[in-house]
């Protein structure tokens, strides 16, 4: 669990939002990236929890069961690819929307993200509106499936 100076931490955020609001896990070791994602996701009606490392992201994904994950790739302990692969291997992992948001910009990184089970990959710098669009598009696709 992480406390950001810009937010009241994951538990506080959950409490501020109606409990039925869909929950998104933002995993990134870069604080500004987490904060920007949180603000834009919350302003679009999501609840947000944050993780700072790969292991934290994996543990939180299992306990808080988010509908979507905004997942950085280069993080301490476990990479986003490790996290995505581990979650996809689990029974409940099928339904989760995983959007990789990374500063890795090579085409091969994209291929690797998709192969690890991410639904999409956005390259930093990502405009907040673009992030929301992609998250919503994939959630809608999941709902229709």
């Amino acid at each position, binding site marked *: 669990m992480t406390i950001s100076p810009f937010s009241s931490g994951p538990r506080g955020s959950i409490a501020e939002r109606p409990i039925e609001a869909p929950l998104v896990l933002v995993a990134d070791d*870069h604080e*500004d*990236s987490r904060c*920007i994602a949180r*603000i*834009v996701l919350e302003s679009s009606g999501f609840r947000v929890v944050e993780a700072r490392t790969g292991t934290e992201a994996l543990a939180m994904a299992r306990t808080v069961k988010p509908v979507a994950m905004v997942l950085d790739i*280069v993080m301490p302990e476990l990479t986003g690819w490790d996290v995505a692969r581990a979650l996809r291997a689990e029974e409940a992992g099928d339904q989760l929307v995983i959007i990789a948001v990374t*500063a*890795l*910009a*090579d*085409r091969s*990184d*994209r291929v690797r993200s998709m192969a690890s089970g991410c639904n999409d*990959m*956005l*390259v*930093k*710098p*990502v*405009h*907040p*509106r*673009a992030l929301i669009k992609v998250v919503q598009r994939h959630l809608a696709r999941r709902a229709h499936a």
Partner: protein
Amino acid sequence: MLAMRHNWPLDVAELKPALELVLAIARTDMGILMLHDDGEGAMFPVLGYGLDETNYQLFGSPRPGIGAFGRAMTEHRRVRIRNAWGKGEALSDAARTLGFRSIEVLPFFRDDGGALGAFGVLFRSARGSGRRAARLTQYCTDVVGCAVKHAEEQVRAERLRDRQAIASEAKMQFLAKLSHELRTPLQSISGYVDLLRSSETEPLSASQDHMLERISESERILVRIIDDVITISRLEAGRVNYHIGPTNAEDAIRATEAVIAPLAANHDIHIELASNGQPLLVHADADKLKQILVNLAANAVKFTRAPGKVTLSCRADDDSVWFDVSDTGPGIPPDRLDEIFNPYVQVGSPAIDSYGGSGLGLTISREFATGMQGDLTASSDPQQGSVFTLRLPRCIRTPLANSHELSQDENGHDQTMRDAS
């Protein structure tokens, strides 16, 4: 054992038939092959015939000028010693132990005169080889010298290529790391600027919004520079892949117009699409074709003073399709038309904020054009504007229905977003 110690440019065992041939021509049954080690500045025995490998060391490691081998090396000629048992002869120990009386050394050289090696032909009597045999053994030595020389050149070229590949790989990795390190802080800039501009609770004044727009624009320029530098180094390393297929020329032009329209509107430039109404197909990588056209059109818009016009059109003959991007800008002086395709050149070098490019766009576009078996040229009438012409091979087949499939460019960006935003 000695042969294993040195990193000769070739497998010395392959020279065994040559040694046997030299000995057969000379009518003797004992001989040795020495190769020169440039690092050590000496010759080392690598192959023997009629003598045991443990006896190779009897020949030592001759240096230039010393002994029969050393003299042959220095004097660039065949050296014959009739009485190798003689006092003071460097090889007298070897001669007594192995039972040879006379020796002929046949050296071979590189084109620059550097020693490559030598055959040592050992005779049990003092007779040596006759004139005819001497001529033939010389031919044989020349042929071997030639083979060793070529093998060495090839190995050198391979090592150079390997070193270059390693250097190029290291450069790519460095740039990938640099790109990652630059994009992370850029995320803070771009994200917070966007949040400030879209905040409903704290609306901005027009001038604040304008300042933030300038920050956004600078952020986009930085991202473009990072992308372009990486693309250039990929091109240099030959690591750009082309997915060539039948591509609809008019689709490419329309897609370009869609990307460039907001920029043109900002600059008060009118975009005109000229078409002859006939569907044209080109052999191209659809992504790279669009990247070239967007780059050309963006340049045209940025270099044309409002109110101006940029025209995108295409024409064809049996073999080629030409895309023309023409503008009503100030034009390019004729003597600089070729130069603009070099990296980091902008005619008149306007300030970066009025141009907003990395200076690599035209270089990349021309490389992409060449990579697709086409070319990119420019012509200009000062005061009348410029025309950039991309030629690509024409395709007569029907297009595949996948031209919209790829939405990401080489660096993994959503192209429409990046260019249009």
